[in-house]
């Protein structure tokens, strides 16, 4: 081959099939980019700025916000309510996403793995329905279910008067979020389980492996990537979930005040925009860490594929 005359295979890369031209292509990109810039990038950047001011919704600091440096952050770290909220959020994510949604989702997918027909459709249908209904509707469904005096749950259990939302607010929203979000994990694991070759499971069964041993030795190694993807995504979503506000509004006595609810109460109900922005920024950082771990993992999976 002559230098510089490397082969170009049949269908060469067509840089511009419709003859759009650079100018028109740029024009096509602009509207979307402007919206993304203004309503996604700017708010993110603004969070950083607002977080170092004493900006308030009303009063003197509303007209003339001052830069207070890292005061908001040191205040947050020293604030019992913030630390409690962080801890509750951790409980919420671990309990409802990692244990609840991922665990239950996998269990359902595994129990249904070689089922076809009405049973599978009915189970999947109900799980999916709880996922797609509007959050303010399902929130009320749970309030009704858990109602102290006339709730269906107490009626079924025969323990009228149990105030689930007052006595066990965290447990309530954890079970609620498990109920609400299991569909995603179930579907992801159902797809993953279909990729586990039958012959591998049969080999294990012939060797006398129990169900648990089959799971450990055959299934999990094959779907490790799916598990990681699933855990990271649902953690991210659960961490940013505002729906518990619709049920307990953080109460009673801030005992179910996860971070999103905390930010809302401090910044928008309480009017402390600067302080709220600082908490928001902490949330953004946590989001970023989760997302980066996820992307890093995707990249590694692509390389090894």
């Amino acid at each position, binding site marked *: 081959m002559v230098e510089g005359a490397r082969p170009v295979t049949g269908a060469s*890369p067509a*840089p511009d*099939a*419709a*003859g*759009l031209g650079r100018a028109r*292509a740029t024009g*096509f*990109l602009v*509207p*979307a980019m402007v*919206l*993304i810039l*203004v*309503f*996604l*990038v*700017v*708010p993110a950047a*603004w969070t950083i700025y607002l977080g170092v001011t004493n900006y308030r919704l009303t009063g003197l600091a509303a007209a003339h916000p001052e830069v207070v440096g890292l005061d908001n952050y040191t205040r947050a770290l020293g604030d019992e309510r913030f630390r409690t909220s962080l801890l509750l959020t951790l409980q919420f994510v671990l309990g409802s996403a990692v244990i609840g949604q991922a665990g239950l989702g996998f269990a359902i997918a595994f*129990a249904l793995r070689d089922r076809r027909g009405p*049973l599978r459709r009915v*189970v999947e249908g*109900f*799980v999916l*329905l*709880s996922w*797609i*209904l*509007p*959050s*303010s*509707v399902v*929130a*009320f*469904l749970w*309030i*009704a279910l858990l109602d102290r005096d*006339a*709730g*269906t749950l107490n009626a079924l259990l025969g323990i009228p008067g149990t105030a689930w939302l007052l006595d066990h607010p965290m447990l309530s929203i954890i079970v609620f979020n498990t*109920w609400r979000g299991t569909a*995603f994990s179930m*579907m992801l694991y*159902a797809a993953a389980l279909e990729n586990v070759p039958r012959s591998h499971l049969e080999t294990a069964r012939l060797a*006398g492996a129990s169900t648990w041993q089959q799971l450990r030795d055959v299934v999990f190694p094959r779907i490790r990537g799916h598990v990681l993807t699933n855990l990271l995504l649902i953690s*991210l979503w659960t961490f*940013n979930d*505002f729906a518990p506000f619709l049920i307990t*509004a953080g109460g009673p006595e801030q005992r179910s005040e996860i971070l999103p609810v905390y*930010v*809302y109460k401090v*910044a928008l109900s309480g009017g402390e*925009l600067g302080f709220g*922005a600082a908490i*928001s920024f902490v949330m*953004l950082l946590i*989001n970023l860490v*989760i997302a980066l771990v996820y*992307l890093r993992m995707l990249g590694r999976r692509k390389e090894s594929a």
Partner: protein
Amino acid sequence: MTTGTAPAPTTEPTGPTVAVRHLLAQIGRYTFLCAVLAFFALPLLWLATAPFDDTPTVTASLPRFTLDNFRALLDNPYALSSLLNSVYLAAGTAALVVTFAALAAYALSRVRVPGRDALLYGLLLLSSIVTGTATMVPLFELAFRLNLIDSRLGVILILSGGLLPAAIFILKDFMDSTPTSYEESARVFGASPLQIMRHIVVPLVRPGLATVGVWAVANVWGNFLVPFLLLRGPDKAPAAVIMYTLYTEGGQADLRLLSTFSLLYSLPVALMFVFVSSRYGFRFHGGIKR
């Protein structure tokens, strides 16, 4: 298969025990599935019974059938208008997202822009970390400065900004898998870029546009936080917000109104779900909803 020597007693489970174990496993499996079914169906029961019960309580019970409760919807000044508001927000956002994402995805798919993959992944990363919850403070501030407080347009714009990166990503995938020879062929016949768009590209990617549209509608229909933050009066509030106010404000909730309204508000997404799953099969690809 040797004969003569007596087989040594093995630790392998013999016939009957295998059958018993299998039976137990089956029973365990069905018990589990029934429990799952009960867990997921129980909260939904109320939604199915209460709207048709002539004296609804918060307990799910067999209704004494009536349709009178739906009259409560007409009596409430905000119930029906809030559904219209939801339609307005969902339609506006979906139109904006589909149009802008299609244009951008087409340009990114067909014209070589330096660093386009990095741009796309960057946007996707951004949209997944910059959630409405984490940025409610600056979003509120921004809407205030842009005079978009209590404006439905503001809600549409903010929701569109959040949905666009993923929509562009989905649609670009779609357009990348469409051969360029269709457009080139039309071009050799003398079609202008806009004719190519109208005659060839849009019809070809219509399923992708529909997917993104449905996905956007589903997202907006259920979104509570953004309209809750930005819209002040109940006359502009969508169903998500009105639903919340119905059971938190004004003393004793009107269960007839609440139950019928819940049902009416839930029905569109449920129907959309049934439609999508019957037409395309609701299998897993990226998720129709986040």
